[in-house]
């Protein structure tokens, strides 16, 4: 994977959070290409249409209407064409029980959304190499950022 130019997909229904994320990516010292979807159903449609060229990393919000992040994660990890896609779960809650279930389901990194911009840039910057390395090591290491 070319970590200098990552294709990132964000699934989040909150427009403010999406803009915040986009600004944070632009503050990183690497170039990224961001595509945003605003719900779980839209996400699964997008992935199903692009199985030949999946993103390098998916940032997945948990609380979304109609199909939530956990349902999407389960579908992705049980789909032969998508299961290797690195998934960073992105949530406002830091509940440990939920985190454990997400890791068992196949998430690589869990980020508890920081409330300030500088911290968001930092956690995204840390998360990208973590998500990338798990492709090569069968996802054995699990990371919680901003515990």
């Amino acid at each position, binding site marked *: 994977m070319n970590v200098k130019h990552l294709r990132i997909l964000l699934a989040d229904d909150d427009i403010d959070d999406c803009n915040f994320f986009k600004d944070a990516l632009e503050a990183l010292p690497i170039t990224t290409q961001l595509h945003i979807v605003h719900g779980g159903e839209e996400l699964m449609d997008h992935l199903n249409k692009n199985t030949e060229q999946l993103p390098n990393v998916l940032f997945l919000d948990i609380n979304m209407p109609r199909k939530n992040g956990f349902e999407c994660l389960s579908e992705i990890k049980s789909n032969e064409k998508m299961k290797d896609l690195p998934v960073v779960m992105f949530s406002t809650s830091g509940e440990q029980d939920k985190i454990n279930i997400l890791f068992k389901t196949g998430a690589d990194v869990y980020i508890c959304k920081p409330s300030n911009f500088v911290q968001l840039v930092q956690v995204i910057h840390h998360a990208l190499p973590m998500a990338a*390395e798990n492709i090569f090591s069968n996802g054995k*290491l*699990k*990371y919680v950022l*901003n515990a």
Partner: protein
Amino acid sequence: MNKLNILLADDDTDDCLFFQQALSALAEPVNFSAVYDGEQLMQLLMHETVQLPDILFLDLNMPRKNGFECLTEIKKQERLKGLPVVIFSTSGAHEHMSILFKTGANVYIRKPDNLAQLVQVIQHAFPMATEKLFSNGRLKYILNA
């Protein structure tokens, strides 16, 4: 850039050797030293003339003075409280983690059992432990959750 000075406090000799092997596999060379229990650690750190490490990796289960006691003392001392501390433990008990973070730990690593993974988590821990602090509080990291 100067080499990072890494101090490890761990009473388990095998774990110390394992850690040292992982450090030597890193892309950037570092200076490494180790102490083997909590009392030895605090004696070293309290010595006025000693140069403080850039990062302390701190095992929790140590004889005489355990890692939690050391962390508490470090964070109460004006001269030591800015020292970045990475807790290094075999346990993944999450109730311990929140107390450690409240006490001032920066990063929590659950010791991986293979060398390649240990190299990876140490590599990630360096920038996390040394990143600048911001007014709204630090970020807390759990590696190998």
